[in-house]
């Protein structure tokens, strides 16, 4: 599925790039995913997606501060996540403070051509949510965390997500096949949540976004996994009775097979 980035980026390219570069009139970005549906079956142990693309009129000079650079973000469906911190209370370790992050991505991976900090200034990266330090982690109003400790919670949250493989940052992982064609692999771990994913690609020039594309990708269970999950969600009573019946049958069968007296 190859899709051009549309009017907005074309406009942006014309407005920002054309005057600066002079002879180049466009640096349009085109991207494509190796697959737009990730199927989860009983043998699923994780996979990866390959993102291909071409930046037209792209002439990349490594470490050229004025050059063109790329960042690709893969984002999973949103979640609300509570982060808790333990403290000692009467000699035992218990959860004390809690911070609830709302609408944070359940999966987040970013790949780029150079260090993320060098792509653009902090405000732009924050706006676009490029890089683990720049994800928008909105907190809920109710929180017993002192203001001075807020950053510790954000760091802990990102670190814990990184440990599960659900958040990752791979700087300089975008490879160039030709002067303008690139590809990158984003690993999808076995524990990825199902849902609609967004793949956002950004082309930077001199610290500004000159072109961007966005594609969607679905992660879905199929076959037996899907039937089981649907049954559990939509007909929980039937599912519960089925589970109990299976258990009683298995137990009874074993009791009969291994009869000793």
């Amino acid at each position, binding site marked *: 599925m190859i899709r051009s980035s549309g009017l907005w980026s074309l406009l942006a390219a014309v407005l920002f790039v054309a005057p600066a570069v002079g002879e180049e009139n466009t640096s349009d970005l085109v991207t494509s995913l190796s697959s737009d549906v990730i199927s989860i079956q009983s043998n699923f142990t994780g996979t990866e997606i390959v993102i291909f693309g071409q930046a037209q009129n792209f002439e990349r000079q490594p470490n050229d501060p004025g050059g063109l650079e790329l960042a690709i973000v893969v984002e*999973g469906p949103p979640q609300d996540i509570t982060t808790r911190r333990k403290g000692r209370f009467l000699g035992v370790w218990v959860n004390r403070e809690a911070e609830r992050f709302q609408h944070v991505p359940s999966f987040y991976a970013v790949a780029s051509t150079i260090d993320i900090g060098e792509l653009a200034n902090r405000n732009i990266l924050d706006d676009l949510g490029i890089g683990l330090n720049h994800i928008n982690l909105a907190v809920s109003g109710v929180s017993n965390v002192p203001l001075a400790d807020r950053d510790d919670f954000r760091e*802990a949250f990102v670190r814990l997500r990184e440990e599960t493989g659900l958040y990752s940052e791979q700087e300089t992982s975008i490879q160039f096949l030709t002067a303008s064609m690139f590809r990158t692999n984003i690993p999808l771990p076995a524990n990825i949540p199902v849902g609609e994913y967004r793949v956002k690609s950004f082309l930077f020039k001199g610290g500004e976004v000159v072109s961007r594309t966005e594609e969607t990708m679905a992660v879905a269970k199929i076959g037996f996994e899907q039937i*089981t999950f649907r049954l559990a969600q939509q007909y929980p009573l039937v599912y519960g009775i*089925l589970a109990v019946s299976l258990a009683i049958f298995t137990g009874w069968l074993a009791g009969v097979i291994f009869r000793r007296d």
Partner: protein
Amino acid sequence: MQLYLPIAEIPVNIFVIFGMGGAVGFLSGLFGIGGGFLLTPLLIFSGIPPAVSVATVTTQVVASSASAVVTYWRRKAIDLKLATILLAGGVFGSLIGVILFDVLQSVGQLDLVISLSYVTFLGAIGGLMLFESVRAIRRRKSGAAPKARRPGQHNWIHGLPLKVRFRRSKLYVSVIPVVGLGAIIGFLGTVLGIGGGFMMVPALIYLLRVPTSIVIGTSLFQILFTMAAATIFHAMGTKTVDIVLAMTLMIGGVIGAQFGARMGQNLRGDQLRLLLAILVMGVGLRFAVDLLLVPDDLYSIAIRKGAGA
């Protein structure tokens, strides 16, 4: 071999899970317990989400107790009347447990309450059993005849009103302690994700003076139905019963249980109780250590809403 679990949404090594089911099944067959108090922590330590572990173990306990109940039923070692009254209390206690479970989960103190309960109950019951079994073994070694159970032997429980006659157990006792016991164990079982056999068996023996030959079958029968109800509650409420995980555990469990039961017949009652006491105390100690030592990571996260919640 890796197998993706449809509800837990993670792949697991099926042989490891099968092995865990088998090992816990062996112990449950050996001691006549459901094994939930061993299996739930084992699954959580191996990376299965706690909610899925708790709910799925209830299903596994149904299978392992069903298997054992068949055997005890054939031996006529079940007091149906006693089991039914315990069950009535159990359902009531379980209902209160479900409510408390939700409240604790939303304030983030569920883990603490589970750990503290494990430490308290496993420590206390393990300690009592250890003390009692060591005394019994010593007495047997020294050749002193164990005191025979006399019909007239009463404690304060036998003075309560609303008495009912339980013929199989040769008991004439008030229903209040029976319902109460069922309720407490149903409550703890729901909150802790265990069948509660290791608490039910000593309580029936020491408090109600139910004959040892009847205790295990009756306790298992009651657990079978409480856990069947708990499975359906979990399926409808938390929606975290993983049928694939449950099946794997069950098959391992029922096979292990057969070997356990066979080995149990070659061991003396007091030796069995000593081994069980050590096991129970060991698990309790493991939780105590976690509560007291500085955790590796002070922070933890829990998904509250959205994908995978």
